[in-house]
């Protein structure tokens, strides 16, 4: 494991979680005050889904859909480029700290469900379907509700935060806790 005292900050893979949290807080202050935008991810993913739906439904079909016409217009804008940036930022950061590593089946998953790549990828795909449907229904994810909404003391966001955590805890204990045999 990486020793917290080793190397320069650029090469140290993990930073103190309070420091990272404080910096995300500062980033929020900058996005709110300089660009008049909160941090959010899941709308950008819904915009990407609209772009992906064009070959299937046709451009007219996508344009005729209420959600893609009004709520998540498939276009390059602040929100969709923020999503691209998040991918690039993590890529740059992991390359700089030499922690970029191609991996498919995480250890905790393998210990519980075995080494099958197909099983893990199928579960991840289905998990992705469920999580984004939930995020769109609630109108936000861990970023848009969890951080940006909670820090404004929004009723919707604190409801989301508490219910999401309770649901995650229940799910994790059901599927990961092994019975003491």
């Amino acid at each position, binding site marked *: 494991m*990486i020793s917290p005292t080793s190397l320069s900050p650029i090469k140290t*893979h*993990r930073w103190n979680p309070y420091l990272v949290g*404080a910096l995300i807080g500062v980033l929020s*202050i900058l996005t709110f*005050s300089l*660009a*008049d*935008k909160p*941090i959010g991810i*899941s709308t950008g*993913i819904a915009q990407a*889904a*609209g772009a*992906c739906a064009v070959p299937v439904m046709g451009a007219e079909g996508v344009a005729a*859909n*209420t*959600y*893609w016409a009004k709520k998540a217009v498939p276009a*390059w*804008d602040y929100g*969709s480029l923020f*999503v691209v*940036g*998040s991918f*690039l*930022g*993590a*890529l*740059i*950061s*992991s390359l700089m700290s030499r922690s970029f590593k*191609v*991996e*498919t089946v995480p250890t905790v*998953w393998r210990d519980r469900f075995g080494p099958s790549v197909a099983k893990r*990828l199928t579960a*991840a795909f289905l*998990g*992705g*379907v469920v*999580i*984004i449907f*939930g995020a769109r*229904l*609630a109108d*936000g994810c861990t970023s*848009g509700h969890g*951080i940006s909404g909670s*820090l*404004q*003391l929004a*009723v*919707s966001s604190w409801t*989301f935060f508490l219910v*999401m955590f309770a*649901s*995650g*805890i229940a*799910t994790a204990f059901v599927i990961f806790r092994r019975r003491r045999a």
Partner: protein
Amino acid sequence: MMHTAFAFITGPGLLWAGLLFGIIFGMLLHRGGVTDYHVIVNQFLFRDFTVLKVMLTAIVVGGVGIFILHGHQLANFHIKSATMLAVVLGALLFGIGMVIYGYCPGTGIAAIGTGKLDALAGFFGMIAGAGAYAVSYDWIAANILPVADLGKKRLPQLFGGPEWVWYAGLALMALVVFTLVNRFHRHPIGCCTQG
């Protein structure tokens, strides 16, 4: 929305700002360790509290900062509607999806950048799921969203009380959570193997 004095990033500049802020966000998610499947899943199993530490610190620092700016007309609030049935149902689905996927939408995108192929599979799932939502949107907008819609409310508006008490309470809650977590849970940073 009121135009605020520091909000000089507008028009095409917003595209670059989105990309730049996104890059910083992705770097921070990676450095915070929350692009790691184990950190996310172990949070829900109470084996690792990184997620809660990052989120609560961001909420307190960003919350106090934006509240002060808002008081000086230097930032707008962007509150999402408390469509309570939709938020509760959505959050229930979200928690289930987050444990099975092993990432949230943002950390999943960032995890793809760190080489995680399961995060990429989940991204395709998110594209499919968002498509399913868009296709069912008209029905949801007619039947789910209007149920128990409290509007764009903030907690002090719903429950009363002075703003500063809410922010002080928020900071105090974060401190109590951090103290309890650090007292009862001493795992080294980077510890991610199953106990």
